[in-house]
């Protein structure tokens, strides 16, 4: 595989889970506008920011409530960091019950989406090795060092607070996904009076070092192993985990194999790098649909047929196009990478298929992205009702984070989706549970319906899932 595909793959592994979307028009104040992924008209505002050196404008998009009520609006906070809230438009389908009574507000944070995306455009270039990529980043940084240094969670939360006041919202509810949960939790620390309830999907608690992902990814893979072994068709594939370990171990010593481009079918000149393969596997764990094909793909690869693995990686191509890389590194380097110690990296990567493959990218990138450290204070207790949603087999924000690092939240409920990956707000009955929670945040939700959310059927062979096999896992079995 060409190096040019590197950014595709590793960006995908970072940010997969939420469909991206790109806006065609740029509407001005309070105009009717549309976002890809949602068919109904929105109201778009542009709020000028006079304090900043480059005087950017914030893009604010409002999906107006169907009926006018005095319910607090729901603000959607996107992940990344680097994803734009406007990319969350497809989520509006699932949030339709909420949208009946509440405005849903999307604010593209500074440096993302339609608020002056800080892109770097490295993924457009033909290169590149990890070193070349780092050099590309350095160039991007040097072009706008002040701007890069100005971007932070604090700034984003202050901007959201300004938008809240500009739109005349007394208090707002928040939905955060992935890194958006971090933004939401910080918002809650800094402006508790402005918030009513929080819905956090794929939780990145303030004190959790979410860029150390090797153990989380390893656990997600083990859940996949467990669920595969319980499925008769998948179990017949044999010990694919051992084959995977072997593949990774022997990759650099001869197992590597060039694979055809999954879009064009053109053969590649060079095989992909080992760390790229490991990150690719990790990325597939984000999405249960892709994960269900992993055992078969690995078995085939170990026999020298890399086509299924290539096809699987194809699903993530373009998935990260909307990510603003400059913003990603500005925030990640200032708020996360700086607080990770070498000992922690060593502990995290030990006994994992991923190792430091993910961390290394950011470590190397941040060397070329010398923004100031922006540490957080220890979180103070908060009593807003909070709904936490985790995928049991999420390779980056496992349920453990929500369980262990949020003791300071006094009123929280936690949904864990069996076999679930990264971001589950659109699956099964969860949209309804979110609506119920927002309607009555203080009552305990009846969460029994999430037991019926299951992994898709495993790929058994070239023909797909084995319709002739008994494929049923007992409800709840996946949750153990």
């Amino acid at each position, binding site marked *: 595989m060409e190096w040019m595909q590197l950014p595709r793959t590793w960006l995908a592994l970072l940010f997969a889970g939420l469909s991206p979307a790109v806006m065609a028009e740029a509407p001005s104040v309070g105009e009717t506008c549309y976002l890809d992924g949602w068919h109904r008209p929105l109201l778009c505002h542009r709020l000028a920011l006079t304090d900043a050196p480059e005087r950017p404008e914030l893009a604010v998009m409002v999906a107006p409530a169907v009926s006018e009520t005095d319910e607090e609006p729901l603000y959607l906070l996107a992940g990344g960091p680097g994803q734009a809230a406007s990319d969350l438009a497809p989520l509006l389908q699932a949030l339709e019950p909420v949208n009946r009574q509440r405005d849903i507000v999307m604010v593209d944070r500074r440096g993302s989406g339609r608020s002056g995306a800080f892109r770097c455009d490295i993924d457009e270039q033909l290169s590149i090795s990890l070193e070349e990529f780092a050099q590309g980043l350095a160039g991007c940084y040097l072009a706008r060092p002040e701007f890069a240094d100005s971007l932070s969670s604090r700034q984003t939360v202050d901007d959201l607070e300004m938008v809240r006041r500009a739109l005349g919202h007394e208090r707002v509810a928040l939905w955060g996904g992935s890194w958006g949960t971090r933004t939401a939790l910080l918002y809650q620390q800094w402006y508790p009076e402005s918030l009513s309830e929080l819905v956090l999907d794929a939780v990145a608690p303030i004190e959790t070092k979410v860029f150390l992902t090797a153990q989380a990814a390893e656990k997600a893979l083990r859940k996949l192993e467990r669920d595969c072994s319980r499925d008769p068709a998948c179990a017949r594939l044999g010990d694919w985990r051992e084959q995977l370990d072997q593949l990774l171990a022997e990759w650099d010593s001869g197992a590597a194999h060039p694979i055809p481009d999954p879009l064009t079918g053109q053969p590649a000149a060079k095989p992909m790098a080992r760390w790229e393969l490991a990150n690719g596997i990790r990325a597939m764990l984000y999405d249960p649909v892709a994960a269900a094909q992993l055992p078969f793909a690995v078995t085939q690869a170990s026999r020298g047929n890399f*086509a299924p693995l290539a096809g699987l990686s194809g699903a993530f191509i373009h998935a990260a196009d909307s990510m603003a890389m400059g913003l990603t590194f500005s925030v990640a380097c200032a708020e996360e990478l700086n607080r990770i110690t070498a000992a922690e990296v060593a502990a995290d990567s030990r006994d994992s298929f991923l190792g430091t493959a993910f961390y290394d990218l950011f470590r190397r990138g941040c060397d070329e992205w010398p923004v100031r450290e922006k540490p957080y204070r220890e979180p103070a207790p908060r009593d807003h009702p909070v709904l936490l949603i985790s995928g049991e087999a999420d390779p980056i924000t496992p349920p453990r984070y929500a369980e262990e690092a949020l003791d300071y939240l006094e009123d929280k409920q936690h949904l864990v989706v069996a076999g679930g990956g990264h971001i589950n707000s659109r699956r099964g009955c969860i949209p309804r549970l979110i609506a119920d929670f927002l309607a009555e945040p203080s009552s305990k939700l009846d969460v029994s319906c999430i037991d019926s959310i299951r992994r898709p059927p495993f790929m058994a062979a070239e023909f797909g899932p084995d*319709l002739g096999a008994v494929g*049923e896992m007992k409800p709840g079995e996946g949750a153990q």
Partner: protein
Amino acid sequence: MKRIKAMLHGPMGALLQKELLETWRDRRALWMAICFSLLFPVMLAGGSIFMLKKHTEESTRLALLGADFAPLLADRLRSDSLQVDALEEGEPQTLLAGDYDLVLEVSEGFAGDYRNFEAPPLYLYIDSSASSSGRAERHLQERLGALQQLVVQQRVTARGLAPQLLAPWRLEVRDVSTPSRRGAMLLAAVPGLLILTLFVASLATSVDTSAGERERLSLETLLMQPLPGWQVVVAKTLAVASIGWVGALLAIAALVSLMPLMPLAELGIQQATTTAGVVTMGLLLLPLALLVAVVQILLALRSQSFKDAQTQLSILQVAPVMLLMVLDVSRVELEGFHWQLVPLVGQQQWLKTLLIGEPVPVLSLLAGSCVTLLLVAVAVRIGAGALRRENLLSAT
């Protein structure tokens, strides 16, 4: 103003008072007006609640014959809206006649043929004469389609191709309707029904005050009073219109107060009718109420008997509503200024606009109402002439 006051204190006032007392003391007519006025808002609200309930809560029952030949299929088809019963055997016709909406039959070699890419058939038995058939098929297609997409995706992936090759483009639908405008569909019938309410509510009264009075021989006494004929027609028109108008107001009030109970938001509809809009709706119906009343009185005076009058007016009340429906369906551009000058059409258009919370052009509203009132005046003149007709009196 002074003249009107003097008129109301004088003979004309007494005449009007007499007509109003007669009208509002006619319990039968009053009940008819009230019942019809409340009937359609209640039906509309009940209907929409029932429809949504049916739409969201009803699930489809599928009998799966030969489930053992494809156990995973049976397992993955199940959903909240699709209840799957795996049956050993059964006659599709009998099953469809019983509790099942659909019967899906898997043949014996299904799994083997599937594995060999031989595209084995699945037999779906439906009863297209059953009302649930369309919904049931949709429920099955939702599940079967998703499963099919998954299989195709896995097959393509297994051959090293990215699944997005199967989607050469994305069709992004952009709906330009607003939540309040989406109400226009549901509320489309309301203007016609409000206008029908005017007709129905004033029907009994208009027959009673004209053909009825004539048959009870009190009309002759009334005509012997020193009052010009137009005053008699005006007094009767006002009395009849009062009950028709109040009926329509009652219907509007019932509709607006039932709206919060209707699952409008669930249907993506915003209740946009404003207080000012409701007041305007009431006011714009007043000239029409007068026109309906005077036309009904004219027709009833023309008719041979009380019975005859009732029959004629029953036809009259259907005709304009049918006309409005035909105009609506025939895609005539009714929004134009000239159309709004036409009584009934104008009122229908304004009501339609106000129901979805949009402002009505004041000029056309005033102009159209003036045209309606002008026609009322013409009809009153004709009515005054009709009262002088000799065959109006009972033969002795």
